[in-house]
């Protein structure tokens, strides 16, 4: 245990406290726990509030480092000044009132409203540019829609075919056991056809495409956002929406219905395999049954659904992509959100459309 003897200068005022404090700190730099610091105030005769504040701060520094601080040779005047300006920490604390339930509810609602209007603004903007660039040749990018369509559609073919096949197959298998008990074998064709075309086909295709292409669109836009590429586009006088989003929009509008057709056909084929092998239905009667049960309404449902879904996938990907902030981490976060949100909204839209078409016959 050692002792440090520090001599304070003749005056401690606003003009020199910072330097003096730095010096004092420097002096006790090597002090260890339990050491004693002796502050000699013998010379000190001019002290102001800043000086007192500095001494207080030094005191708390010593306490923090568990040093013993002793002040020596303090004259009465100096003592009085110290007393006068001594800083006492406030004893009671007033907490900011916690926001009440309704305040928080209102805040949430307000934020939600903000997101909603932002989303609506984006959607209307994309629609606007989609229509404008349909008629304006200058706004179109040569071959971009085709390129995007190939990227979205072609590479998704195998996986969507496989999933659709499995779904049709399982659907038929599960119902075949029940139908056989009643000798209603042939109705497996109706069941698989209607379920695939008006429900499963559009839904699973949309979910697969949301996972595959929705995520990649969101990630691409988000990466461009965080690496300032979107800013660069704007600086060049190019609006990112018509330049980047509209070709993808058209590509999705083209490919999703086509992929759904494929999923429907393969799903029904999967059902047919069960029908032929397990229920002993010939191919030709199965085919006729499928054709007879599928009406114009089912085709309409599938078209409306897949077009709606493609819009939903694009809008969520664009919305989250454009919201990205920060580096790679931000990109990852918005990509996940985009996929989750687009699958959620696809299922919500599916339920709503299902309900609507249950009650309403399409008139056109």
């Amino acid at each position, binding site marked *: 245990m050692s002792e440090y003897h520090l001599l304070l200068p003749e005056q401690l005022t606003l003009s020199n406290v910072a330097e003096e404090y730095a010096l004092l700190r420097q002096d006790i730099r090597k002090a260890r726990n339990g050491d004693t610091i002796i502050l000699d105030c013998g010379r000190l005769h001019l002290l102001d509030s800043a000086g007192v504040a500095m001494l207080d701060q030094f005191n708390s520094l010593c306490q923090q480092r568990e040093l013993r601080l002793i002040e020596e040779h303090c004259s009465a005047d100096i003592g009085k000044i110290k007393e006068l300006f001594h800083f006492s920490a406030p004893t009671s604390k007033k907490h900011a009132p916690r926001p009440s339930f309704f305040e928080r509810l209102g805040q949430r609602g307000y934020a939600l409203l903000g997101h909603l209007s932002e989303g609506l603004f984006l959607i209307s903007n994309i629609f606007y540019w989609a229509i404008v660039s349909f008629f304006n040749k200058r706004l179109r990018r040569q071959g971009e829609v085709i390129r995007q369509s190939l990227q979205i559609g072609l590479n998704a073919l195998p996986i969507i075919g496989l999933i659709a096949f499995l779904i049709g197959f399982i659907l038929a298998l599960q119902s075949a056991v029940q139908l056989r008990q009643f000798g209603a074998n042939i109705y497996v064709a109706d069941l698989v056809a209607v379920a695939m075309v008006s429900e499963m086909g559009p839904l699973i295709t949309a979910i697969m495409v949301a996972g595959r292409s929705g995520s990649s669109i969101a990630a691409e836009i988000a990466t461009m956002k965080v690496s*300032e590429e979107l800013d*660069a586009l*704007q*600086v*060049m*006088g190019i*609006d990112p929406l018509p330049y980047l989003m509209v070709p993808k929009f058209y590509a999705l509008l083209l490919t999703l219905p086509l992929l759904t057709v494929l999923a429907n056909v393969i799903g029904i084929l999967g059902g047919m395999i069960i029908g032929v092998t397990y229920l002993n239905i010939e191919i030709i009667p199965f085919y006729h049954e499928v054709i007879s049960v599928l009406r114009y309404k089912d085709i309409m449902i599938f078209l409306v659904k897949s077009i709606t879904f493609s819009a939903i996938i694009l809008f969520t990907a664009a919305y989250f992509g454009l919201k990205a902030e920060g580096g790679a981490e931000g990109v990852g976060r918005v990509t996940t959100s985009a996929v989750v949100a687009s699958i959620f909204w696809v299922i919500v839209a599916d339920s709503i459309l299902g309900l609507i078409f249950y009650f309403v016959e399409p008139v056109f």
Partner: protein
Amino acid sequence: MIKIHNLHKSFDEKVVLRGVDLDVFDGERLVIIGRSGCGKSVLLKHILNLMQPDKGYILVDNIAIRKVGQKDLFFLRKQFGFLFQGAALFDSMSVAENVALPLVEHTDLSPAEIERKVAEKLELVGLPGTQDLRPAELSGGMKKRIGLARAIVMDPKYVLYDEPTTGLDPIMAASIDKLIIDLSNQLKLTSIVVTHDMQSVEKVATRVVMLHVGKIIFNGDVQALHQSDNAVVNQFVSGSIEGPIQPKPVKY
């Protein structure tokens, strides 16, 4: 002429600009210096309305950039070339496509003319023959120079350079400095250069301003910069550790 008046900008709690007043005159090469993180890039982005101020306004040729419609904004922006600090090249395109993009979008030049123009600008930044490379295959300094080629390919009226020479070797940096000077002399364009590099400040600047804690604290030519009696300016120019600015991290 660009007129910036009383510009304020903060991100959440963090105040970045607190009342910047700055006039940029036609034909000059204005250099903006300041410590890292003091808001130089933010200031540049405000000039092109890539960020919106909380308070204050910016006039470009007496047009308030915040008030113009979308269409005019794009027209206004076409007069600008902007070299981003991170170059901001499009990864999905080759170097030639990157540089040619503004030409393809905004002019009716034939592919051959565009190709010629791209080659000319690439030559200018010292990277001839890199047309078919991808941005991922370039080094940081090369990206920067491609970004520079893209910024000047439309022969803009104003060019904003965000740290054009950081990440380049001294010789390349000197040649970029020369390029900036030549461009502004030949094409009579107005340049705003953000940099930390005191060497390039001395060569390039016709006027220097220093941004510090959100305000312009120095405005004058290079000579005045060296003779300034402002302690902050002196410390920055001489690059010493002692002085009013402590290099310790600031609490955000």
